[in-house]
């Protein structure tokens, strides 16, 4: 496929992003730069000081809803991307209603119990939608432990072992690697 063909193909797809934090904001920006047709982004949170060490927001956006700030940033990078935003805390029923028309869904939550809820909901309610999960990206170094594992239509990106703690904080480089690995996996699925 040529670069022109790749760009043309990506325009026809819609990608859901569940969470607009470290994984979601960076993954969404990578997909926007690549020229994805549409992004559906859901998050309930606002931009806070502690987010700026890894999330795709700016100091003058502190206090702004993450979905609003992210849409603004994507529009500044690539205004041709259609960005649909939902300012909600996702649950079993809204995951289905918000993302049912997306070609792929990216799991970009921070808490383990939210990841579990989304993955279980997708297995039972959205079994045909490929799901790209971010799992294990705390701390620094050990880049070679970060990989993609596929099981049917669930793709797990990360080291699957490092959990956030005081010794293993979430930092821009490893969070960014996993977020971009998720975006790269989305492209691989869509362009195959």
């Amino acid at each position, binding site marked *: 496929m040529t670069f022109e063909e790749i760009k043309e193909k990506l325009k026809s797809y819609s990608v859901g992003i569940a*969470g607009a*934090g*470290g*994984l*979601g904001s960076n993954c969404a920006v990578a997909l926007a730069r690549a020229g994805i047709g549409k992004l559906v982004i859901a998050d309930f949170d606002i931009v806070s000081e502690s987010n700026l060490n890894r999330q795709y927001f700016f100091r003058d956006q502190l206090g702004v809803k993450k979905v609003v700030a992210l849409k603004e940033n994507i529009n500044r990078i690539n205004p041709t991307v259609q960005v649909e935003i939902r300012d909600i805390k996702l649950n079993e029923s809204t995951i289905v209603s918000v993302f049912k028309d997306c070609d792929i869904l990216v799991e*970009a*939550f*921070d*808490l*383990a*119990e939210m*990841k*579990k809820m989304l*993955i*279980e909901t997708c*297995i*039972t309610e959205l079994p045909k939608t490929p799901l790209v*999960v*971010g*799992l*294990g*990206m*705390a701390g620094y170094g050990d880049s070679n432990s970060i990989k993609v*594992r*596929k*099981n*049917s239509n*669930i793709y*797990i990106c990360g080291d*699957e*072992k*490092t*959990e*956030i703690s005081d010794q293993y904080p*979430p930092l821009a480089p490893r*969070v960014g690697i996993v977020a971009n690995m998720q975006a790269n996996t989305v492209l691989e699925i869509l362009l195959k």
Partner: protein
Amino acid sequence: MNITLNNRPESFEQSDLTINQLLEIKKFTFKMLVIKVNGELVKKDEYESFQIKDGDDVNVLHLISGG
């Protein structure tokens, strides 16, 4: 029996195992799990009764916070 566990072949002396027995043998002590057997979700309240059999494709996802 021979099964596929997280994309890798695994052999066990037993002819079948419950999910809890498998987790114990493999020393999976994690709390937050998503388990699929042959693509179907197995919920936590079935871990004691659900039987894994020869040829099954078992996927155990250990969920950790961060993102």
